C-alpha cells in the first residue's frame, strides 16, 4: 500500500500539462515521450536536435530530482531483473508500434478526444491492470 497523494499528484499533473503546452505552442509538437525519444532513431539532423534536447531535459530533471528528493524514486521496481528486461522490450517496442504511451495518448490524445488515443489508453490501462492482478494476486 502506498500513501494517497491527491494534491502533489494533481500539481505534478499540472506541470506535465504545462510542459506539454510549451511543446505545442512553441514547437507545434505533441509531447509524447515514446514518440519524441523513439523518433531520435532515423531522424534527420535538424529533427534529431530538438528530440535529443527533450531527452536531455528529462535526464537533467532526473538528476535534479535525485539530488534534491531521491525518495521520489521510492525503492525502485519490485520486479526481478529478467522480467525488467522483458518489460523494457515490451514497453519500447509496444509504444512505438501503438504510436504512443501514457503522455502522447493518455494526456495529449485524450485531451484532443482522439478516438485512436482513447482506444489505446483504454487498452493499455486494462492490460496493465490485468497484468498486476495476475502478478500480485494469482502468482504473487
Amino acid at each position, binding site marked *: 500500500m502506498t500513501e494517497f497523494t491527491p494534491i502533489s499528484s494533481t500539481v505534478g499533473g499540472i506541470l*506535465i500539462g504545462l510542459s506539454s503546452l510549451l511543446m505545442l505552442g512553441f*514547437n507545434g*509538437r505533441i509531447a509524447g515521450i515514446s514518440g519524441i525519444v523513439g523518433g531520435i532513431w532515423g531522424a534527420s539532423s535538424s529533427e534529431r536536435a*530538438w528530440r535529443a534536447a527533450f531527452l536531455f531535459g528529462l535526464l*537533467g530533471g532526473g538528476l535534479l530530482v535525485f539530488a534534491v528528493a531521491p525518495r521520489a524514486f521510492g525503492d525502485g521496481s519490485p520486479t526481478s*531483473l529478467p522480467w525488467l528486461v522483458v518489460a523494457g522490450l515490451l514497453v519500447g517496442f509496444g509504444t512505438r508500434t501503438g504510436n504512443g504511451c501514457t503522455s502522447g495518448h493518455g494526456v495529449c490524445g485524450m485531451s484532443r478526444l482522439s478516438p485512436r488515443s482513447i482506444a489505446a489508453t483504454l487498452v493499455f490501462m486494462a492490460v496493465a491492470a490485468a497484468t498486476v492482478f495476475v502478478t500480485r494476486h494469482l502468482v504473487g
Partner: protein
Amino acid sequence: MNRTIVSLFSGLLFAIGLALAGMTDPLKVISFLDFTGAWDPSLAFVMGGAILVYAPVYRLITRASEPRFDSTFHLPTRKDIDLRLVAGAAMFGLGWGLSGFCPGPALVSVMSFGTDALVFGASMAVGMVAFGIWQQRRA
C-alpha cells in the same frame, strides 16, 4: 536553436512534474493499477491535472495559424483504430504492469542510477531501436 531550448526546458519541467506526481515510484504505479488490492488512486489525479490544463489551452493554441517556432502544427490526423494500435497498446500495458515503468518515468529514473531503472531503460531503448530497424526493413 529556439526549438531546441524549448524542448530542453519542456523535458526538464516534464521530469519534475512526473517526480512530484509520484510517477517515478514504480511501486506507486503498480498500486495504482491494483484495483482489486490495496488500491492507491493518486495517479488518476496526474492524468486529471494534466488534461485539465492541456485540453482547454490546446484549443486556444491550435486556433492560432502556426506555432511560435515552426511553420505548422504537427498533429496526428488518423482516426481509424487498427490492429497495430491495439496490439502495440497491449504490449505496452503488459510491460507497464510488469515493471511499473512507462517511458517518461523510466528515463527520469535512469538518473537515480538504480540497477532496475538502468536495466529497464536499456531494454526499452533496444525495443525502440528494434522497432526502427523493423520499419526501415519494411520500407
